[in-house]
């Protein structure tokens, strides 16, 4: 394994930064986040059609570019840096990964090229109301009905769930518990009985939705992977998504650091730049130390994911825990370093603080992930 980004990956990063500087400027982020849809359709078209980001990790057989998970890493960092409002994370890091991990040939053919082309957006609905992150979070049920299945339940915190075209739903057979009996189904959003409601949230830059499934009937072909083995599929998908999210957190944390440093150089008090006071300088030094270390954690996880490692649990949880702590820390320090202006609606610092908190609890908060690492350490 190489421990630095390749020239090609650096180029992807530069291109992403150029694009996002204009298409995901602060003003553009603010206007996108104020809509219910939560993103600018024009930008989605550009990034899927012109930049082909949606095709990056999709295999060539399904009209993708067949690039590695590590190739995605710099792009994720840049999206985080720019706080891009986009269904990218839900569609690629959750939706497409469900299919890549567990889909059969027909299912992949049916959906992946549309996803690669940006024509279909997707998401994964697994969590339900509460703070549970493991398989116990899944209480929605399915039962056999004729050739197909009937789903019932109430999903929460579904990323871009109110706009996604295709929803992968995790449900369990009645009376099953824990990791047993979980299955995953592909449910087109317009299926009868599916009700989707945007749930406005503190972080406006990534939308969450509630999805109720009221006797939703799906055909046999909707089952992804083996019946009853859905938790494994969910876990691997979630781990892949956590790794991408960790990379996104690194980029956003670094942006907080950059904002802080820039401000510390120009803001003067007591006749000198505040960055000359150690109380501020040392905060920045600690932020840099955390950002580079978080980058190491996420980089390693992305690299391992690209190599097809079977159990991603430890690296994914390590990266997610470390990068969550880092992003939140940097976002919070950024506000402190900015003083009063950092507390205003007008200044972007709060957008990062809010994204940091939302990302921290998304797909498992740090303590959940550390416990998961502890289990894998044999503790």
């Amino acid at each position: 394994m190489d421990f630095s980004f390749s020239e090609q990956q650096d180029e992807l990063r530069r291109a992403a930064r150029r694009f996002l500087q204009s298409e995901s400027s602060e003003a553009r982020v603010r206007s996108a986040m104020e809509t219910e849809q939560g993103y600018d359709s024009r930008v989605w078209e550009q990034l899927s059609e012109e930049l082909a980001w949606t095709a990056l990790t999709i295999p060539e057989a399904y009209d993708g570019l067949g690039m590695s998970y590590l190739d995605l890493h710099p792009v994720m960092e840049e999206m985080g840096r720019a706080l891009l409002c986009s269904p990218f994370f839900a569609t690629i890091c959750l939706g497409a990964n469900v299919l890549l991990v567990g889909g059969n040939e027909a299912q992949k053919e049916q959906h992946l090229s549309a996803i690669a082309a940006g024509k279909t957006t997707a998401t994964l609905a697994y969590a339900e109301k509460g703070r549970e992150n493991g398989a116990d979070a899944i209480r929605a049920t399915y039962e056999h009905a004729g050739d197909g299945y009937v789903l019932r339940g109430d999903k929460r915190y579904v990323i871009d769930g109110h706009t996604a075209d295709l929803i992968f739903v995790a449900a369990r057979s009645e009376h099953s518990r824990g990791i047993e009996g979980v299955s995953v189904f592909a449910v087109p959003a317009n299926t009868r009985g599916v009700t989707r409601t945007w749930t406005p949230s503190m972080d406006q830059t990534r939308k969450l939705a509630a999805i109720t499934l009221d006797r939703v009937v799906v055909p046999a072909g909707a089952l992804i992977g083996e019946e009853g083995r859905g938790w494994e599929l969910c876990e691997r998908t979630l781990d892949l998504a956590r790794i991408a999210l960790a990379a996104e957190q690194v980029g956003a944390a670094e942006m907080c650091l950059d904002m802080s440093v820039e401000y510390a150089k120009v803001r003067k008090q007591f006749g000198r730049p505040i960055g000359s006071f150690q109380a501020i300088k040392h905060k920045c030094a600690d932020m840099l130390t955390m950002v580079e270390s978080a980058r190491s954690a996420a980089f390693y996880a992305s690299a391992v994911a690209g190599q097809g490692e079977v159990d991603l649990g430890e690296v994914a949880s390590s990266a997610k825990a470390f990068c969550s702590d880092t992003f939140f820390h940097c976002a919070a320090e950024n506000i402190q370093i900015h003083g009063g202006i950092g507390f205003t609606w007008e200044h972007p610092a709060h957008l990062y603080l809010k994204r940091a908190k939302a990302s921290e609890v998304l797909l498992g908060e740090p303590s959940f992930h550390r416990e998961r690492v502890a289990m894998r350490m044999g503790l």
Partner: protein
Amino acid sequence: MELQLNEAERAFQRAARAWLEEQLNGPYKDLQGRGASGDQDSYIEERIAWGKAMGAAGWNCIGWPKEFGGRGCSIKEEAIFNEEYVRANGPGNVGHIGETLLGPTLIHFGSPEQQQRFLPPIVSGDEIWCQGYSEPGAGSDLANVQTKATLAGDEWIIEGQKIWTSGAQYSDWCFVLCRTDPEAPKHRGISYILVPMKQDGIEVRPIKQMGGSAEFAEVFFDGAKAQKDHVVGGVNNGWKVAMGTLAFERGASTLGQQYLFKQEFEQVVEAAKKSGAAKDPIIRQRLAHAWIGLKVMRVNALRMLEHQGADLNREALISKLYWSNWHRDLGKLAMDILGPEAEILHGAPYELTRMQKWYLFARADTIYAGSNQIQRNIIGERGLGLPKEPR
């Protein structure tokens, strides 16, 4: 998360492993694991002999260029060797100051005569060096050194005092930062002088550390002599030379150090399982956090080693601050895991267990080689371009 080795590197690794195993299970068996931090004053003579054996077998200074007696090994090969050394439980290396600090300084700044005189005995393990920087009034503010050197004929006459000098008790030589021009601004009047330790004008008084051992000392210079031409890099140019020494720290040793940390960490995990602390959710969180931190440290180091170019990249700048805090926290965690048993000594009067030793010694990690605060200044200024401290 291993280093990726090619065939030649694997052969190198096998050779190192074979030699270390043979020696450390044979003639130098007693030295396994001795002389680490907190235990540096034990087995001195045996460890000096060990250094010579390493030299005779070609394992000292392997990263130095061949023309200076090294093997011209790559950073990666050095890292391989350091890992093997720790794996084999190699003893604390009494020659490391000569190998990692003075040698590279001479290679870079020394005259050909100085190089010929001083480098070979470092490679062979025949001469042991110590670092005479800190003084009672010059710690972090190193440029404030007051120890004075005055030229009298062919010799420098040195008056003053150094403190915290690691290994002064058994060193043959010391590189001493001396004030040679009291009139000049403080960074300009300093010289880097090579001083023999075994002479009448020098008195060494060991200082007992919190762990009970005496790994450093006060060094008093009262008319001590050094040869006129044993100034490195020119008279009054010592500040530049001293700063250069810092830049030679390229981090190949960090992988070896991390291997050591990993061993320590594993002991802590074992202790947690044994004592039942591993069932405590908060201890579990802390252990997982430490484990994640250790792996991150390793990737940081591997990224640092892959970085090409002379400049220090960000991973290098953060390295000291990161590892020293990690290690200090692990020490505390180890004690928390042991509970009341953590207090019980190995024996009277004050014989510490291995874990107690590194727990206590880790309190120094955040002080020497640039304290945490100084590291943050450096990161802030060199890494982020923030305004400089008053000097």
